[in-house]
């Protein structure tokens, strides 16, 4: 992957995530764009790319929260590694499998944050029932849009 392109995507994604969750959340719900991109990177280019970007994106989210610095970084790293492991078993480059992986990984992310909260701050960090139930599907919708925008034309034709 072109490093310049990756760098542009890396910073643009952080601005987009910030903008979306601050100005465009619906009933307090906003998609985890950075999580979706971490899964997409790991699914397309392998776990290493996903883990590198995911770790830094996780740090970005950690910096915006007053508690548990490192929790998002760890969660995103494991999500990228998990996606990479799934990638070796089945083809997750397609839209359908990627959306399913995103839904599963979002739930895994919420539970992981909760458990990390339980371990490091002695209280299970619960994101709330609406976010837990709806965010995975919201993320899947974002995956569909991103997939349509990010897939090269020759791949569409194929």
């Amino acid at each position, binding site marked *: 992957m072109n490093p310049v392109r990756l760098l542009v995507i890396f*910073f643009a994604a*952080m*601005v987009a995530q*910030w*903008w979306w*969750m*601050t*100005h465009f*959340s619906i009933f*307090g*719900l*906003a998609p985890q764009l950075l999580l979706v991109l971490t899964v997409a990177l790991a699914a397309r280019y*392998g*776990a*290493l790319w996903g*883990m*590198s970007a995911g*770790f*830094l994106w*996780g*740090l*970005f989210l950690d*910096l*915006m*929260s*007053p*508690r*548990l*610095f*490192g*929790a998002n*970084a*760890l969660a995103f*790293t*494991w999500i990228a*590694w998990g996606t*990479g*492991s799934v990638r*070796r078993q089945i083809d997750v480059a397609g839209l359908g499998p990627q959306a399913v992986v995103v839904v599963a990984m979002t739930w895994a992310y919420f539970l992981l944050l909760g458990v*990390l909260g339980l*371990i*490091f*701050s002695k*209280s299970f960090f619960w*994101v*709330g029932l609406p*976010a837990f139930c709806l965010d995975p599907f919201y993320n899947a919708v974002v995956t569909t849009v991103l997939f349509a925008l990010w897939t090269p034309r020759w791949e569409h034709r194929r």
Partner: protein
Amino acid sequence: MHREARIANYALAVLSVIALTMLSLPLSSPVQAFKACAAYVLNPAAYVGAKATERLANVPANIKDLIAANSENRLMRDKMKQVEWTETESQALRAENQRLRGALGLKGLPERSPVWARVIVREPEHWYRSVTVDAGGNQGLAVNSPVLGSQGGRLIVIGRVVSVRPDTSIVLLLTDEQSSVAAYATSPSTETVRSFDGLLQGQGGPRLRLDYLVPDATVEKGDLVYTSPTSATFPPDVLIGTVVQIFPPNQELEWRSMAVEPAVDASRLTEVLILKTQSAAAEAPKLSSADANDTSADTTQETSE
């Protein structure tokens, strides 16, 4: 094992160790230094994005304001003449107050000056927990600076600063479980004090809980809750919210509890007023961008009032 999988496993181990170190030792110097570096690199994304959005969104309003500015300017000049008199009067009253406090042997109140800041980051998962504002160490803010909001011309308690960077700060909202403030209730009509001080705590949701009120406190639904003069962080007598539910007395507990609805909804916050103490303001110019990248409070340990 496949080469790519082996490298991924090594990377997973390294990144996990880094993340777990950050989680386990959040206050150690290497983690604080790493956090400062990460904030220096990654934080501008939100700050720059906020500034760009603000400028773009303000273009139509700025043009409109420019047209209205002339007539407003004339009005303001007239008002300024009145303000000059009010300021002179206020200075005289302040001097008198200080003189009388001195005569009674009372300690003077800390001098605070306000800084207005915009809310630039609000996370859906932390809706009632924290927000990030576009003022920081360069504006003279310090950890534990009280953060207020304004609604209908009244000041309302919002939370306090828990992390300061050069141009941004993280505000822990009063609705977070780790927030607490000493408070008392008054009748909304007569403004008579209904109770002795209690401890108001966040619940991680839209409502707050006022505990430790004496059993014979005559608090009713609709009573207003204000910050207590004994509060270490907040100025006294600032509105917090309204009593919406009084819990039935528990035989095992020797105090009364009630639910309080904050006077300002966290989801409507766009601007906040942060009170900086004069000592923090004096230190502001010394705060270089290198050492001011992140001054965080250990939020788990310094919550109690």
